[in-house]
């Protein structure tokens, strides 16, 4: 099982390579990728440097071009595919059918991975992308239990990559419009969820309020830790109850599942977080590398090291973690 790590800039890429990633994934500096944040991501020169650095050390580089280009801007996404191909990267991570069609036709020898943003959760969908575009790997949305992942792998025509650590999307990726409903910008169209430009913080007599394009996402009392107002992790009222109606601020952490994921045939474990710091990338890569190595060496005797858990806890959203949909009770 490979370890795939995020890099939002060159220092993060180097941190991932140096800490034991099998592959690093990056994006360009625009809305062609699902982490379209100011000051983040790679221009062609930096991407070229990154590819050289990684390849010299035996690490592969994937480029995510995984948003959905609209009719009026389709050409810019095509150019992103061409730029990535020109850089000699090892795979493209794509979601859009039109863009997959273009990439498969224009660069038939380039390896294609299906992005989690394509929302493919089952073998029939995977067969569609495999037969039509020759994808060789797919990243599964964070909606399946371990048993369901196992069922998919048994029938899948392609390698399966799953999320192992990082921020948790509660909704099926690629099929969540909550952010554009509130702000006009969604992961599909803009490459960001709950974009920073729509966020406002305000001290009020009722507490510190966070708003997204005017919609109150949360309100914090004295002593409460305020988190980034990601729409699905706010506190809302349903009937008479106010609380985290959709999900708590929490991160996915699959350390304890690593031997199971290996046993069922997961090809690669992905770390979320291109928007995070090089320190995050270094810490998470180091811990997951150690855990995967330990599980490979002795799957039956595997146990989660307390130091690993503590390290990951430090970099988790809300300082708490969950197994997410991998475990039925979460659902």
């Amino acid at each position: 099982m490979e370890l795939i790590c995020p890099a939002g800039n060159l220092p993060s890429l180097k941190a991932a390579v140096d800490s034991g990633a099998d592959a690093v994934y990056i994006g360009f500096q625009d809305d062609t990728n699902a982490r379209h944040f100011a000051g983040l991501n790679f221009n062609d020169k930096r991407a070229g440097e990154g590819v050289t650095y990684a390849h010299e050390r035996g690490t592969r580089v994937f480029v995510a071009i995984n948003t959905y280009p609209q009719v009026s801007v389709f050409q810019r996404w095509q150019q992103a595919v061409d730029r990535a191909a020109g850089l000699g990267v090892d795979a493209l991570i794509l979601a859009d059918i039109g863009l997959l069609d273009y990439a498969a036709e224009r660069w038939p020898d380039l390896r294609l991975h299906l992005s989690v943003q394509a929302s493919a959760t089952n073998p029939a969908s995977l067969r569609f992308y495999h037969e039509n575009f020759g994808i060789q790997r797919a990243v599964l949305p964070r909606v399946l239990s371990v048993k369901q992942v196992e069922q998919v792998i048994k029938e899948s025509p392609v390698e399966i990559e799953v999320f192992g650590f990082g921020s948790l999307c509660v909704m099926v990726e690629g099929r969540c419009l909550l952010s554009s409903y509130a702000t006009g910008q969604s992961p599909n169209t803009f490459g960001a969820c709950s974009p920073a430009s729509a966020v406002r913080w305000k001290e009020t007599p009722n507490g510190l309020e966070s708003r997204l394009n005017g919609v109150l996402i949360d309100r914090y009392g004295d002593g409460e830790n305020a988190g980034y107002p990601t729409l699905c992790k706010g506190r809302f009222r349903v009937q008479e109850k106010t609380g985290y109606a959709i999900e708590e601020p929490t991160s996915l952490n699959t350390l304890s599942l690593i031997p199971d994921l290996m046993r069922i045939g997961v090809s690669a474990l992905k770390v979320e977080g291109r928007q995070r710091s090089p320190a995050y990338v270094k810490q998470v890569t180091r811990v997951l590398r150690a855990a995967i190595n330990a599980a490979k060496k002795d799957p039956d005797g595997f146990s989660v090291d307390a130091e690993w858990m503590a390290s990951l806890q430090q970099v988790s959203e809300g300082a708490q973690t969950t197994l997410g949909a991998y475990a039925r009770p979460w659902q």
Partner: protein
Amino acid sequence: MTAVVPKLALGPILYYWSKQQVEDFYRDIADSAVDIVYLGEAVCSKRRIMRNKDWLRIGEQLQARGKTVVLSTLTLLEAASELSALRRLCMESPFIIEANDIAAMQILQELGKPFVSGPSVNIYNSRSLKKLAECGLCRWTLPVELSATELAEFQRQRPDNVETEVFAWGRLPLAYSARCFTARAENLQKDDCQFRCLDYPDGLLLSTREDEAFLCINGIQTQSARTVNLLGEINRFIELGVDVLRVSPQSRNTIDIIERFTAVIDEPQSPKRFNTELESWMPTAECNGYWHGAAGMARY
């Protein structure tokens, strides 16, 4: 080019209603002026009050009354059993299928059957549309977050044999999850949900902490609290050559809404005269921001 007058479609019931309510609903629909009726469960595989044979029976009754029937399929497929059920439905259905996931498209392509795509299938550009048309797509629904400007681009480049449908009335389907939010709101596990969705025939309102109606929980689906209403855009639809307008069912006044849509489609007149009535039939308020290229919840 002769102007296309859009047909009217009734989307699948996205909520969980009792069998009696479903039967009564479609008995009324049989008498309505709607041209196309989508039947079936698109949200949650645990909702089984209506079995396939029930849907097929209702479909035959509607067909006998001159309606074009489409069978809707599940949007989020997780278990292997859900995929086998989908395959069976695709094989056995005498009606055309609405694919709400790529899985259904793949299966129908293998079977050599044409299909329609629902609003949750991501078709964001013409190249995607063209590719899917080659696979058997004969009508597609514009993803709800795309604007009139984008639709105009699509229409210019649309393959000849593909019709276009727009979600024109209803609470917008916005997201899907492995988690059931209705069960969560009721402090229940999804595996023991006790079918609480039956208690909320128009979903369960989610408000902000300052009581602004924001979203609507419908099991594993999240919808907008506000209702999209694009009846006012009728002239634009005609100008763009939109073939079908979709009204999404709600527990009350669906027939009234269909009547107002039909009135405006059949006889060019200002839809404004119906605004007050239509608004009174919305569970909370109106929105149309997506159509104008803005936040979906906005109203223009």
